[in-house]
Every structure is written in C-alpha cells, then in structure tokens.
C-alpha cells in the first residue's frame, strides 16, 4: 500500500504542471513579481517656504497696471493711445525720431 501511495505522488508530480512564480522559494514565500526598484527613485526634499517669505510684498500692496501706465504717460507728457509718432518722411530712423520727441518735451 505504501508503495502505491508513493507511486501516486510520483505520478502527481510528473503529470501535473503546477508552477511557482519564478522559483520554489518565491512560490512559497509569496513574492509575486518584480516590483518597482525603490533605489531607482530619487528622494525629493520637502517643499519649504523661502526664509524671508513673510517680508515679501504682497501683490495687493503694489501699484496696478493702469496706474503704472498713467505714470509712464505722465513722464512722456502724452497718452499712449494717441498716435504721437508721426511718420517722418526724412531718412531718420524711428529710434531717432522717438528720442527727438522725448527731448523736445
């Protein structure tokens, strides 16, 4: 009887085809498959605020765009919307004509 049982087990091993996931050790310990290699992932430093963050001016405190344009217009003495740059028929370049306009004010 013992012989027959041993033969049965040999038969089971020969005929069945159960397979481990790689090796017997891996099959028994349960490691399923290769996972991400944690050593290839670079650790990031945590996000921190700059040291003088509290002292930086907030956007509300600054001047608005419209104010900025009006200051610029004042310094030029003219409005940006108007066509102040007349096309000069002379051979002067555009840059020179602008400089001339500014100096003449």
């Amino acid at each position, binding site marked *: *009887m013992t012989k*027959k049982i041993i033969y049965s087990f040999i038969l089971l091993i020969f005929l069945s085809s159960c397979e481990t996931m790689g090796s017997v050790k891996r099959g*028994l310990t349960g490691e399923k498959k290769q996972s991400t290699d944690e050593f290839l992932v670079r650790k990031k430093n945590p996000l921190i605020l700059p040291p003088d963050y509290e002292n930086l001016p907030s956007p509300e405190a600054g001047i608005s765009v419209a104010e900025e344009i009006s200051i610029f217009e004042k310094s030029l003495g003219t409005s940006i919307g108007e066509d102040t740059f007349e096309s000069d028929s002379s051979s002067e370049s555009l840059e020179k004509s602008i400089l001339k306009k500014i100096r003449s004010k």
Partner: protein
Amino acid sequence: MKKIIIVIAIFLFDRVSKIYLLNLQTNGINIDFYVNPFLNFYLVWNTGIGFGIASMELSIYYHLLTFIILLVNIMLIFFLLKSKGIYAYLFALIIGGSLGNLFDRLYYYAVPDFIDLHLGDYHWFVFNVADIFITIGIIGFILAEFLMKRKFL
C-alpha cells in the same frame, strides 16, 4: 465508454480554459486578474513538471521528459482500459488532465498555469484546470487504497 467520455470532457474543458486565457493575452490583456482575496489569475509557463520541479530551457532534456510523460500516459491509458469500478473513474480523471498538459508540452513547449490560490501573501503553486483533475484523481486513488481492499486492476 463512460470513462472515455470523462477523459474527453476533462481534456476539452482544460483546452477551452487555456485557449480562452491565451486569446485574452493575444488581445493585449495582461493575465493578472484579482478575483477575490484568495484567488488570482496570473499566467506563468511551466517547462518542467509538477511543483516547479525541473523547469528548463527547450533542450534534449525537455524532449526526454516529454517522452517519459508520454510513456506514463500510455501506461495510464492501459490501466484505464483494464480497470473497473471507482478506479476506472479515477484513472479517467487523471488521464483527462494529464493529456491536457501533455498536449501543451507538445504544442507550446510549455504548460500554461494561471490559477493562483493564496492566503494573504502566501501563494500556493500556480496551477491549471488539468492539475485540479489530476490532483482529485490521485487523492481519490490514495483514499481508495485506504478504504477499499480491492485491487485496481
């Protein structure tokens, strides 16, 4: 006649299960399904024999092993035809599964296994439908040896 029908039925059931899963893989679906906390479907190819023993590259040893398995199958078919009663059905179970695995060894040069029983992270060997019937047959055979005094032939 009943024995032959059982053998053919098990062989076809095993083939259908394997072809279905292999077709899924051909269609680009990775065979790695989670069914429940105890059962996964995960495809591996076995080039050796049971319990991951003698897995090897395709070589003369592979063909030698296939030839031995073929001889064992022929011997079992001989026993099947000669045996009577419960033993005949047990042999039919074993041969049905065994022919399924032998077919894969000859056709794919490896046996696809895909049923992964596990408890937490502890996995049992990955097996297939043919293995289920072979194991039932062998366990039945051992039990019959204990319980019945009759010889199987």
